[in-house]
């Protein structure tokens, strides 16, 4: 049900772009104005959200320790999972952000009772997530050629590596296939596994469908319904100089592609997609496990009512005296 809502929402968006361009001919709106607006919303919204998080302090020092603390010098501490230095935290965050360390932790390969090795199920989620995010990054890298003049060599290098299969199948990038497979998996697991279905909201499906839509249209304009790539770059570069030229003769597929991408950009700051920036601020991961060595300050700390020793002694004076314990006031 939740998946259907999201599917219709994305389908509706596609229809809007299709009729906007094919029926009404509002090419400039879809090629220029909406992307401009989406980019603005993305950047401003993202900064707004991060600043909003940043305005709330981290009152307590709460890293989740996943390894041995640094205590006695002869006990080997886990410098990354229970970081004792800034470098450790950087390494921990890098592993988390680049390799999805925590998802990978899921379960160990184990020898089961029937003496066969099982590869525990949830590594698949790690793999799916990792493939999706890395593919997305590389695809963004590839797209940067449309926004840069000249294009730096390492961007071309990344693209060449990604396109290594093109010797056999033209116009196909490894990441295109990978991201489609990963997104399909991420969607299917939400539908197939009852417990993931239970926790999935329409917004979870919406993000997946939106991404799928962008990718599918992207692959299509590169294979089946080719567009004049030079015209697209002229348009993109034109946007930097605030003098965009909408190329003639590009089919609606291209407009749907950039419209969905624009929606995705604009949706980003208001959704769970903020997990990207969010991970950097996660206090269970980005703090050093040194809270007994360095005092953490809570900026809104306030005095609280306590039961002082004097009050305590007053209340129990006779009892204390009775067993011969020392008193402050006899």
């Amino acid at each position, binding site marked *: 049900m939740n998946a259907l809502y999201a599917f219709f929402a994305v389908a509706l968006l596609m229809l809007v772009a299709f009729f906007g361009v094919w029926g009404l001919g509002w090419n400039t709106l879809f090629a220029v104005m909406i992307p401009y607006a989406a980019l603005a919303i993305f950047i401003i919204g993202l900064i707004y959200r991060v600043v909003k998080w940043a305005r709330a302090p981290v009152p307590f020092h709460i890293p989740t320790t996943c390894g041995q603390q640094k205590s006695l010098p002869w006990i080997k501490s886990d410098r990354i999972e229970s970081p004792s230095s800034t470098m450790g935290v950087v390494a921990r965050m890098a592993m988390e952000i680049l390799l999805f360390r925590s998802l990978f932790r899921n*379960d160990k390969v*184990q020898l*089961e*009772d029937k003496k066969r090795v*099982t590869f*525990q*199920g949830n590594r698949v989620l790690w793999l799916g997530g990792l493939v999706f995010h890395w593919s997305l990054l590389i695809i963004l890298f590839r797209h940067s050629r449309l926004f840069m003049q000249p294009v730096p060599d390492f961007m071309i290098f990344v693209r060449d590596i990604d396109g290594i299969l093109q010797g056999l199948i033209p116009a196909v990038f490894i990441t295109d296939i990978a991201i489609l497979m990963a997104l399909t998996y991420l969607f299917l697991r939400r539908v197939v*596994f*009852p*417990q993931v*279905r*239970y926790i999935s909201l329409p917004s979870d499906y919406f993000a997946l469908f939106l991404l799928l839509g962008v990718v599918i249209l992207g692959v299509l304009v590169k294979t089946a319904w080719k567009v004049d790539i030079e015209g697209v770059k002229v348009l993109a570069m034109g946007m930097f100089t605030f003098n965009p030229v909408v190329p003639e003769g590009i089919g609606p597929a291209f407009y749907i592609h950039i419209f969905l991408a624009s929606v995705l950009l604009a949706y980003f700051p208001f959704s769970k997609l903020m997990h990207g920036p969010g991970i950097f601020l996660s206090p269970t991961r980005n703090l050093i496990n040194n809270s007994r060595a360095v005092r953490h300050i809570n900026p809104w700390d306030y005095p609280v009512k306590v039961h002082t020793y004097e009050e305590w002694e007053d*209340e*129990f004076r*006779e*009892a204390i005296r*009775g067993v011969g314990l020392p008193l402050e006031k006899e």
Partner: protein
Amino acid sequence: MDLGQAISQKKAAILGKWFRLIMDTYPLDASGFLGREKDRFANPVGYTISREIEVLYDELLQDMDSEKLAASLDSIIRIRSVQDYPPSEAVSFVFLLKKAIREELGDDISDNQAYADLLAFEARIDKLALLALDIYTKCREKIHQIRLNEVKTETERAFRLLEITRRMHDVPDAEEHPGDGENLSP
């Protein structure tokens, strides 16, 4: 083919069916996890059930060694008696075997002889169910006993505290303040 043979030959299919039927008695959303995850430590419930029903099945087919049956039933029922089930549902998993057999052997139960065999086998299952009820009751008694023990130790501790307190004079009134003689163990 006689039914006894059929039941032992289709063991894997019937056990699989039985296991899925038992899993269905869990909230829909959990059964996916309980049924799928194979690690005995990550999923002790699913693991225990799948292991023990196989033992039960083998015993049903052979000599119904009541000690082995009791041990296996105990492993399953011990879990189900602390989960949110009324007694009927906690032991209902035994009867699900009947359903599994009838569904898996549908075609094999064609003639009268096979049907008679089936009824005989089901009688064994009924015995198992009675045993299961016994064990369920024992498990519940155990829980009550553990609870009682805990209350008892707490009371003992409280009395000890009271005793010490009484030996002293001028101690604050036990009624008005927390901490006197009515403690809970953290």
